[in-house]
């Protein structure tokens, strides 16, 4: 394949309207998820995010039962269910001897099962697979608007609150003494997380959305030492990874698009894990190096 051929292969999908919409939607959702992912990684709440993503399902089922397939109904249902599980787990943890991870595990699997049962009763013709693994090629106008809206609210909001969040993520205890309203910021983060995950529902579905959320931030975490760089790097990687995954799934027809996106992001993560200049695995395989000048200075002092 010549150079012109490669460009044509990349550009060709952009001629179809359904692909234009899918690529735009994927880029938006990837950007928002990549941005929010940094907070989730540094707050060490990846598993909590996983439980929340699964607990969206019963909310979607109730949404479908009450409002049909209207995206706003799905949005409201998913939001309510995820917040119910998140707050319910906190309530159980505080009012019993159980810890929060245990309470979450019980609540979210029960919620997920409720979702599966409810969806089997739904009269509207709806494929369960679309909710589990996404269907970005069938993205609707409302899904697109939802993607715009969430990206336009979530990214500027978190970017504005970057400094207090940095203090909170670095030292939760000390941050309070620096005037950070930790309780408020934690609630805001939970709500933002749920809203972001719902916006990625049509792209990757409830099972794979964690990959889109975590993988870009985890990759950038292995590459840089700055909070700001991690935020924007994660956003860029999420957007580019989503576009690349979509293009791949277009050319290899039959490849599920959500899985292709997560596979691309997973591949990039693997590369960073192995070859990151500062924190890659390859460093362990080389003989140790140290800051030579500092050692010399220390010996000289005596």
């Amino acid at each position, binding site marked *: 394949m010549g150079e012109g051929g490669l460009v044509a292969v990349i550009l060709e999908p952009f001629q179809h309207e359904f692909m234009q919409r899918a690529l735009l939607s994927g880029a938006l959702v990837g950007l928002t998820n990549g941005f929010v992912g940094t907070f989730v990684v*540094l707050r060490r709440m990846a598993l909590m995010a996983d439980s929340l993503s699964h607990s969206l399902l019963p909310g979607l089922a109730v949404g479908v039962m009450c409002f049909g397939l209207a995206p706003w109904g799905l949005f409201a249902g998913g939001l309510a269910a995820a917040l119910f599980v998140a707050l319910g787990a906190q309530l159980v943890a505080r009012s019993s001897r159980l810890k929060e991870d245990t309470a979450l595990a019980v609540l979210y699997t029960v919620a997920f099962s409720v979702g599966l049962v409810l969806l089997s009763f739904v009269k509207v013709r709806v494929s369960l697979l679309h909710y589990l693994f996404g269907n970005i090629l069938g993205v609707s106008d409302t899904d697109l608007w939802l993607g715009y809206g969430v990206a336009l609210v979530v990214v500027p909001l978190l970017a504005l609150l970057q400094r207090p969040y940095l203090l909170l993520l*670095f030292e939760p*205890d000390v941050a309070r*003494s*620096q005037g950070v309203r930790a309780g408020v910021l934690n609630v805001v983060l939970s709500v933002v997380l749920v809203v972001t995950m719902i916006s990625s529902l049509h792209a990757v579905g409830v099972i794979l959305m964690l990959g889109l959320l975590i993988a870009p931030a985890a990759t950038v975490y292995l590459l840089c030492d*700055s*909070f700001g760089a991690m935020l924007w790097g994660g956003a860029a990687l999420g957007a580019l990874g989503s576009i690349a995954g979509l293009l791949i799934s277009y050319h290899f027809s039959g490849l599920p698009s959500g899985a292709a996106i997560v596979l691309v992001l997973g591949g990039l993560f693997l590369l960073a894990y192995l070859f990151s200049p500062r924190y890659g695995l390859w460093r362990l395989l080389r003989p140790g190096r140290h*800051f030579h000048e500092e050692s010399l200075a220390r010996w000289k002092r005596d």
Partner: protein
Amino acid sequence: MNEHGLVVRDLTVSYNRVPALHHLSFEVGCGRCVALMGPNGAGKSTLLKALAGLLRRETGTVRFHGREVRGVPEDFAYLPQRENVDWDFPATVRGLVEMGRYVRVGWWRRFGREDERAVQNAMVAMELEGLEERQISALSGGQQQRAFLARSLAQEAHVFLLDEPFSGLDQPSQDKLRGMLRQLREAGKLVMVSHHDLATVEQLFDDVLFLNGELIAWGPVREVFKPEWIERTYSRRAFSGPEEGHRHG
């Protein structure tokens, strides 16, 4: 009453209603290095955190420079124990020191020239030149302590509350840190340090405060750092009752 220092009256702090510090009252002047001494569980960290506003005070008042300290004290900087810091966090030395400035700059305002200068001066004062872009886990233990001190300097704190800063440092690093604490003291800052090494108290500190759930004794090192008080601090297991701490000097 001491108008140029810290005055603590009747301070009680509890965890889940179990008191960890009982009715502490003491005064320390600025420009002093104060050691908090006592066995494990004596409440050294609790006292530091309570002064920094990290723990709720059940009873009592804290006054600094004649004004009551409430809520979040901007003038107080708390340096956590080494093991409580996530050293893998994506932060460089400069990033860490800039965090101290947020209290002054606010959440949104851009760093002005004065802020940049405060950050730079803090790093120079703590001898961190050349390490500005180093990630915080790639520093030695002594450098890490100095990086946190620089953050507090950039914050323009007047009271430095340090939790076991000397533990795990080799001798050259200890000497250097001691030099830095002296500098702070000479600049009129109040430095309070929880410390467990009895052998180094006399060379490092001006004042000592013996704690074991309650205040046992406090005052200048040469007057209070005596076997009778050391023994009393480290031997007693039970809380003796609502007795006042003893003041010397």
